[in-house]
């Protein structure tokens, strides 16, 4: 049996006066690649250290497959950790680092040799077996620490920002490899990161944390497309917020009045009454931008606004437009270049433009009854 269900039940933790974790409860499925995502200082590492057994929570419980492990020492938990700075033993070779946990268990030399080689080849380090940690690159050290943590076949692997010390290209590469290692070993991964790209690209589910509170748990697309609140919407990717007072509601759509813009349609992702204050998020890549008034026959609900291009940033695969509406509201609009860029009629700085989107592409994040 591989992997464990991890139940985190109502964990609280304070350091001195400050509350670091606030009633944190999570249920992580067997074999899941689960990410803890949140800004720096929100308590991710603390939660991970509580699961590993390096910190004791003030209250709450941690269960692996329905057995509480809260009173066990780190060396008694079938949970292993990948540390951010690798934490390799500097006096041991790559081989001996990976053999270390097996030697503690007094495994025979033959088994040690087989297991160490198996896991070192899984992380593609067969050729560096004899090297000392000081002779390895950052990426290679990280691989050794992965092999070392997996060699005991733990039920859960905890990874605390394992890629943050690597450069961007290598990070991407290691992420893909982590994903394939996860597929091979099939155990539960709990992956801590403050990088939303990382979390979205490999996770089965993501928990977004902020100031010691879990704000939302969901699949990457749930988190991205239907964020639980404005913080999540803003923290994950980039977005635009439109807010106003609801003036009318029918069975599927509502209309709000936005200061300086006027009437804007939105879908009723949550129940809304006339008079409520609502906030809708629209991702920049879902907004279209053209110089001419768009053809919207057949799409009567499309929202069309006009403004001036305030700034534009060309990034190769897309251009980011910052469009100033009459009302001083700034909108981000990302245009993908699916064709050779030079073929398109270019939109330049200070050009008057129309921006438009389908209300179905927005998401109603917050409703405040009035």
């Amino acid at each position, binding site marked *: 049996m591989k992997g464990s269900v991890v139940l985190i039940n109502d964990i609280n933790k304070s350091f001195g006066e400050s509350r670091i974790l606030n009633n944190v409860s999570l249920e992580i499925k067997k074999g899941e690649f689960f990410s803890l995502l949140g800004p720096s200082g929100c308590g991710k590492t603390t939660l991970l250290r509580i699961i*590993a057994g*390096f910190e004791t929570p003030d209250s709450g419980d941690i269960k692996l497959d329905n057995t509480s492990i809260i009173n066990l*020492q*780190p*060396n008694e938990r079938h*949970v*292993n*950790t990948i*540390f951010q*700075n690798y*934490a*390799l*033993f*500097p*006096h*041991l070779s790559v081989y001996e680092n990976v053999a*270390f*946990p097996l030697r*503690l*268990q007094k495994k025979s030399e033959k088994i040690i040799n087989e297991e160490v080689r198996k896991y070192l080849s899984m992380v593609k380090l067969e050729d560096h077996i004899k090297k*000392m940690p000081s002779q390895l690159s950052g990426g290679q050290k990280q691989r050794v*620490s992965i092999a*070392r*943590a997996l060699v*005991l076949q733990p039920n859960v692997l905890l990874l605390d920002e394992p890629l943050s010390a690597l450069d961007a290209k290598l990070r991407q590469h290691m992420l893909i490899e982590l994903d394939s290692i996860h597929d091979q070993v099939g155990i539960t991964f709990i992956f801590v990161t403050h990088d939303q790209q990382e979390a979205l690209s490999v996770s089965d589910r993501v928990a977004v944390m902020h100031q010691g509170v879990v704000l939302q748990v969901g699949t990457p697309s749930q988190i991205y497309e239907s964020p639980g609140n404005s913080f999540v919407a803003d923290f994950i990717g980039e977005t635009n917020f439109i807010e106003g007072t609801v003036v009318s509601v029918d069975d599927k759509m509502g209309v709000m009045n936005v200061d300086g813009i006027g009437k804007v349609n939105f879908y009723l992702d949550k129940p809304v009454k006339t008079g409520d204050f609502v906030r809708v998020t629209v991702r920049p890549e879902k907004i279209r931008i053209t110089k001419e008034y768009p053809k919207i026959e057949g799409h009567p609900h499309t929202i069309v606004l006009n403004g001036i291009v305030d700034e534009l940033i060309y990034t190769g695969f897309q251009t980011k437009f910052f469009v100033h509406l009459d009302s001083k509201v700034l909108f981000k609009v990302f245009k993908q270049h699916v064709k050779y860029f030079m073929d398109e009629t270019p939109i330049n700085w200070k050009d008057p433009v129309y921006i438009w989107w389908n209300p179905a592409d927005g998401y109603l994040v917050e409703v405040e009854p009035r």
Partner: protein
Amino acid sequence: MRTNSGINKRQISLVVFVSVILFFYIPLLVLILYSFNSGKTMVWRGFSLQWYEELFFHSSDLWSAFRSSLIVALSSSFIATAIGTIGGIGIHWYKFKWKKYLQIVTYLPLIMPEIIIGVSLLIMFAWLKWKMSLFTIFLAHTTFNIPFVLLIISSRLDEFDYQIIEAAHDLGAKEIDTLLKVIIPMSIPGIISGFLMSMTLSLDDFVITFFVSGPGSSTLPLHIYSMINRGVFPVINALSTVLIAGTVLLSVSSKNIQKYMFK
């Protein structure tokens, strides 16, 4: 006219370098030279090995003092290294109540004048009614060596990350496994330097040893001092030459050992 001050700077530093070398090595060279003098005074009377012969075949007191020095140095360094290592690890990795004060107290002997340490040990041994012997010298040397070992071990441990210890626990190590298989092996370079440092300090020490030695328990530095009082320079020259050669050999080989061990 020369205006290039860069050259002047270089000349100045060259002059400084050469004069330092001269001041440092000329006395040694003179000493080595005179160890081969056939006369007894500082007047050159021709080459001879008679002082070496004297040193190696007719100076049994000196050799027994040398043996005492070695015994004291080896035993006190060994014990001081053991205590200093355990203490350094304890202070570094474990948290306890009076840690800060303990740290200050352990480093105090480093800055205390030797003569005070010597006198205080003398008073303590007298109070205990212990006879001065090699054993009291051994105790004294162990005492002043411990802080040096502590200092060296601590600075070595400072370079390591506490997460390494956590990683060891995480991978199944108990407290004792962590100590024996991670912390101590990791500190080996520090332990070796601590031991070598202790050896040097112990072999060198005159002041403290002077207070705690008794009849028949002379170390090499004490013996040399008494020989100078009796006015037998040339043997000391020969002895010094042998010691210089030994020191040079030792430092070269310890470099090589370190290179081999810690690449």
